[in-house]
Structures are given as structure tokens and as C-alpha cells.
């Protein structure tokens, strides 16, 4: 009898211990964000673009991974993100975010507050790669630029830096590295630059930031 009670107690506890139930979400209930681009309009509104992978089934089997880019504007980055979320049936999940890109307009104005917001978001790993998009192309257009070499632009950026190209004229800068460097006495930081000619993606040179604002590239 005592044994039965023990087992009953054990299973009751097991049920009660499922505290993560409220947070558990199936993978198809999440929209994995792999890349994010942030810029500013002439009116001063934030333009936020996110890139999400979409698995397309083809003829009885899973086909190649494709992606969608969703763009919205808002008075704050949060507002723009919530506007994007209103367009998706699932919840935006930033846990697998690979890269964050900033348009040159925003970079010249200052990226300090935006980075602070991103760094304080716990689900977002502080090792995401940072990139500045030259004015030759808008940040949202850059993010949707497909390369013939790698399907997803966000993954292209990650692969580029992970390959550690010795001849490249730029180097990877992660979120925590930039934040650390720009918090030092000199308040200076570097972020790699990129642009696209609508056919290919180019990552070269570094942007110099002083007090969170783009000084030179």
C-alpha cells in the first residue's frame, strides 16, 4: 500500500513539475528569425526587416529551404517588430538569429540604443554578427538579396565569417565585442561593411564608430 502511495506521489509530482508547459511551443509554432536589418526612414521611423526560413515541400519530399523577408516600420524598434508579428501566424523566435544589419542612415545617427535593446533581450545570443550596409542599397533590400552560392543571405554572412577568409579585408564583430569595445575609454568600435550589386554580396572594409555613431568607412 505504501509503495502505491509512493508511486502516486511521484507521478503527481512529475505532473506538477511540468512547469515549462506554458513556455513549450512546437517548432511549427515558432517563426525562426535568422537575420534582421534595421534602418531609419527620412521621417525618423525605424524600418525593421526580418528574414525567416520557409520549408517548401516538393513532390513528396522536403525541398530546398527558402526564405521570406518581412518588413514593417514603427516609431520604435519594438513597435516595428510587433507590427511584423501581426503579419505572422506564429511567434517570432530570435534564439537562432545569426546576424543583425544596420543601414548607413541609422549608423550615422547612432546605433547605441538599438544595440542596448538587443543585448538586453535574453533569448538573443550575444554572439550575433553585426554588419553595416552601405548606402548603395537599402538594408531591407540587402537582406532579401539571394546569392547563387548560399540560399539564405543571413546564412551567407555567417558562412563568410566562419570561413575566416584570410585574404578578406574585413573581420567578424559580434554583438558583445562591439559593445565591449565601444564602452571602453575611447568609445570606438568597428563593424564590417557590406553591399550588394543585386547579383552578388560583397563584404569588405570596416566602419569606424565613435560614441556609437558611424564616423568613417
Amino acid at each position, binding site marked *: 500500500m505504501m509503495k502505491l502511495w509512493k508511486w502516486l506521489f511521484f507521478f503527481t*509530482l512529475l505532473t*506538477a*513539475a511540468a512547469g515549462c508547459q*506554458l*513556455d513549450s511551443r512546437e517548432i511549427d509554432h515558432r517563426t525562426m528569425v535568422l537575420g534582421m536589418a534595421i534602418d531609419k526612414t527620412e521621417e525618423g521611423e525605424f524600418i525593421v526587416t526580418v528574414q525567416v526560413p520557409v520549408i517548401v515541400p516538393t513532390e513528396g519530399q522536403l525541398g530546398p529551404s527558402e526564405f521570406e523577408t518581412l518588413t514593417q516600420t514603427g516609431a520604435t524598434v519594438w513597435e516595428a517588430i510587433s507590427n511584423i508579428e501581426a503579419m505572422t501566424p506564429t511567434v517570432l523566435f530570435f534564439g537562432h538569429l545569426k546576424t543583425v544589419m544596420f543601414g548607413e542612415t541609422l549608423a550615422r545617427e547612432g546605433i547605441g540604443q538599438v544595440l542596448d535593446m538587443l543585448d538586453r533581450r535574453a*533569448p538573443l545570443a550575444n*554572439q550575433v554578427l553585426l554588419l553595416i550596409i552601405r548606402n548603395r542599397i537599402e538594408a531591407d533590400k540587402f537582406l532579401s538579396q539571394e546569392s547563387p552560392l548560399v540560399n539564405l543571405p543571413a546564412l551567407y554572412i555567417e558562412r563568410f565569417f566562419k570561413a575566416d577568409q584570410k585574404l578578406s579585408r574585413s573581420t567578424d564583430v559580434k554583438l*558583445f565585442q562591439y559593445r*565591449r569595445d565601444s564602452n*571602453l575609454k575611447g568609445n570606438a568600435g568597428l563593424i564590417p561593411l557590406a553591399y550588394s550589386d543585386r547579383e552578388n554580396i560583397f563584404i569588405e572594409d570596416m566602419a569606424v564608430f565613435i560614441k556609437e555613431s558611424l564616423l568613417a568607412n
Partner: protein
Amino acid sequence: MKIYAEQIKKGIGSAGLFTFTYCSTIPIGTVFLPYVSAAEIRSAWLKVVVAVIPYFLFIYLLKKTTDKHGTRDVFQLLKSMAPSWIYYIVLVYFFCSALYTCLFGTKSLVIIVQTYLMQATEQHVIMLTYLAIAGISVFYGIKAISRMIIVMFLHDIILIASLALFFFSEDFRWLFVRPVFDFQLLTFMESSISEVSRYGGVVALLAFLPYVDKNVKIINPMATSLFVIMVTYLMVSLLVLGVFGFDQAITLLSPITALMQTATSATGLFERLDLFFLTVWVMSFYKSALIFIWFTSSLLKKLIPFRIKRDWILVSVVTGMIILLSLFTPAITNMGWEPYNINNLVYTLVLPMGIFCYLLVRKNKGQGASDS
């Protein structure tokens, strides 16, 4: 349900004493290291080294006291040698402070879990499941707790050893960890109190020592453990400052968790390895909860003038009190750290050392009797 010493035939060994000392102190001391509620942290790594010295004195006096009187039950000694009203005031203060520590530990766990793991789950759900499991685990008694923390201690060591790899990474720079002495006396004092109180968990040894095997020499495991704790704190402080720099480190809720996030990981299954480390960290909080719920309930047992046969009742009362306090108090971010740190300093260091000194100057009862 065998919880207390008289029911244990063979005492706990030196490995048990070592891990108990380590696990009673590490989780809450490390999780916010070197964060000291916006106080000065530039030289935190240096202060944790200095702050351990009073606790070495603590264990030295503890050993002297137990050696002199031939018993390891300090509370029993105090009861027999001090006026009973002093004994009860001291015990009530210890009990309330131990509850305060349990409350702070629970709140810390809740904020870490809610920030990094379960954003959508209500605080009370996390709190209740955590305390229910910890409370029920204490029913199995100190010997089972001791065995469990030895096993889980290995997790801690793996975690700490993994973090040590940061010393060899490009992200770590010695340039950021140079000591800077702030000349603002008040800030310096405040942060020093925080650093000293990180070692406060060792107070639970006062209730644990009577269960240690009589043949075990207590000073060596305790001193070694305290040294390992200091090395762990030192390593975490150096890593956090070396990787993030002072200005960024001060904005992080849990620098050690951010450090884990920084770990470069492979893609695919192990992409967010930091969340696995975080789970190990949560287990570490469980160990600490086991120790402190047991410690608080053993204090309650000493406080109650009549004998309660079923010890699980005491554990349930203590766990219930922590649940109620946790539910009806604000989150840790809205609570003051200074009162907690100062109280921690008094009840884990100043008061026990006062008791040791008092017991050392008093004559051994057996010795006094033979003299007369």
C-alpha cells in the same frame, strides 16, 4: 523519514563535508558575480580573494571551539553555556536570517529562469515547482542530501572547467582586468560587504558538523573547500571582466550566464549550448535550496521547546513559509541588496565568531568539574 543526526549511525565523511561547504556557498555567490547592485566592481576579482580571509578565521575558530569542548554541536554548547534568553534570541535571529537567505535564493532562481528560460511562465509556477521539489527532497534527510550534492558537484566542476577555457580564447583580454582602486570610501565599503557576504553560505556548517563522522578531521575539507570557492569566484570575476570589460559587465543581470552565451558553439543540435549550461546552473540552485531548507528546519527544531517526532512537518513548515514570503514580496530587482548583504555578514560571520569567542573563553564544563 530520517532527517536528523541521532538517526544516522555512521557519520558523513570528508568528501561530504567538502562538497557541503562548496555547494552551500557557490550558486548565489556566483550567479551575480561580479555584480554588486551597481557598486564598484572593477577590482571585484581582487576583493573576492581578500574577502575569504575572515571565513578562514571562522573555520579556524570553529575548529578550536569544537576541539576545546569535545563536541561539534555549537548550538547545543551555546544552550548549555549561555543564559537561555540569549540562546533563544540568537537562534530566532539565525532562523529569520536563514529564511531571508532562502527567500533571496528563490527570488534569484525565479529571475534567472524567467529571464533566460521561461519568459511566458508565471513567477509563482516556477517558484512553487522549485520549492515543492526541493522541500520534498529534504524529507530524505541530510545523508541523502549529502550524497546527492556529491554527485551534482561533478556537474559544477564540469561547468567551471568549461568556463576556464575562456582564458585561452581571443575574447579574453587581461587588459580589462587591471585593478582600479576607487577612492570613494562608501562605495568601496559597500562593494566589500557584498564580496564578503558571498561566502556566507558556510554558516550552514554550524548545523551540519554534528553529522560528520567523528574520525574526520574537519579543518582540512572545510579549508580546502573554501579555497576552491575562492578560486571559482576569482576565475568568474576575471573572466567576466576580461571578456566584457567593466562598463558592459555592470549592465548584465547575470554575468556568468552572459559568459555562457558568449561561448562559440557549433551549429545544429548544440547551437544554443548556453541553455544546457543554464540548466546545470539551475540544478546548482536546487542543491543550495536543499542545504538551506534543511538548515532552516534544523534551526526550527532547536527553537521549538517540545520534541516533534515527525521531522517532515518542520521541513513542510519552513518550505511553506518560504513559499508565502516569496509570493507576497516584490521581485529581487525591486528589493534592496544592501540590507541582505549586511544581514548576511552579521549572521554568517560576526555573530558566529562572537559565539566562538564566547565559547572559547568559557571553561570546558568537564574540565571545570574536574578542576573543582
